[in-house]
């Protein structure tokens, strides 16, 4: 006679579709936010190409500038720019959620935590622009 064995059912875990993120706007927005990191990497690649061109001499840098004016590059950089802005805004807006700051027992409103980030962003951007544009 067979020894009875206790039957333990495996938990039912449905396989998620590869396209689950297309199902709802919040999911798509999440994936787009994560994909903004690709634009970040793109910027680094372009900057390294720029540095290399700079090192190789005026002719090389001139060629780089010509390359950057190509419509395809302009479009790619414009798309990357929007994604990078998207990254910055979502990043700064996450700061209040990551740090629950309390002052005198009451929670500091999100805007007060996000705002310094935006101010820093504006100041840093102005600084960089000034250094680069003063010629």
């Amino acid at each position, binding site marked *: 006679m067979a020894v009875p064995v206790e039957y333990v059912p495996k938990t039912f875990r449905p*396989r*998620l*579709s*590869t396209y*689950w*993120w297309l199902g709802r706007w919040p999911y798509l927005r999440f*994936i787009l936010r*994560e*994909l903004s*990191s*690709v634009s*970040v*990497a793109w*910027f*680094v*690649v*372009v*900057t*390294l190409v*720029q*540095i*290399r061109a*700079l*090192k190789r001499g*005026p002719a090389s*840098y*001139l060629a780089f*500038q010509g390359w*950057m*004016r190509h419509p395809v*590059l*302009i479009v790619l*950089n*414009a798309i*990357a*720019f929007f994604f*990078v*802005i998207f*990254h*910055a805004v979502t*990043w*700064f807006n996450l700061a209040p959620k990551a740090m629950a700051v309390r002052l005198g027992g009451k929670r500091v409103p999100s805007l007060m935590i996000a705002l310094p*980030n935006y101010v*820093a*962003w504006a100041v*840093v*951007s102005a600084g*960089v*622009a000034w*250094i*680069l*544009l003063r*010629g």
Partner: protein
Amino acid sequence: MLFSAGGVVAALLIPIQLFLFGLAIPLGWLPGPTYASLLALAAHPLARLYLLVLCTLPLFHWAHRFRYTLYDGLQIKHLNELINTFCYGGAIVGSILAAYLLWRM
């Protein structure tokens, strides 16, 4: 931690840099620095440090984020060895390249 640092650097610095060198200067909205002045600027030790940070930390931010996007987005976590090599390996290669380029300007 690298991910956070990279995210902060990317958020604060990349927008203006990309706007200037990717759009405003190529499209002629703003006059760019001359070759000579840009080279002189980039050769400065502080500028090289700035560029090193600008070109390494965001790569690690991408690596970490893209890895999980591939896992969760495309549901290909079983390819994790390939994904990790590609992501973190890519970030390391990029960082070494940046350091090499910036070592002697």
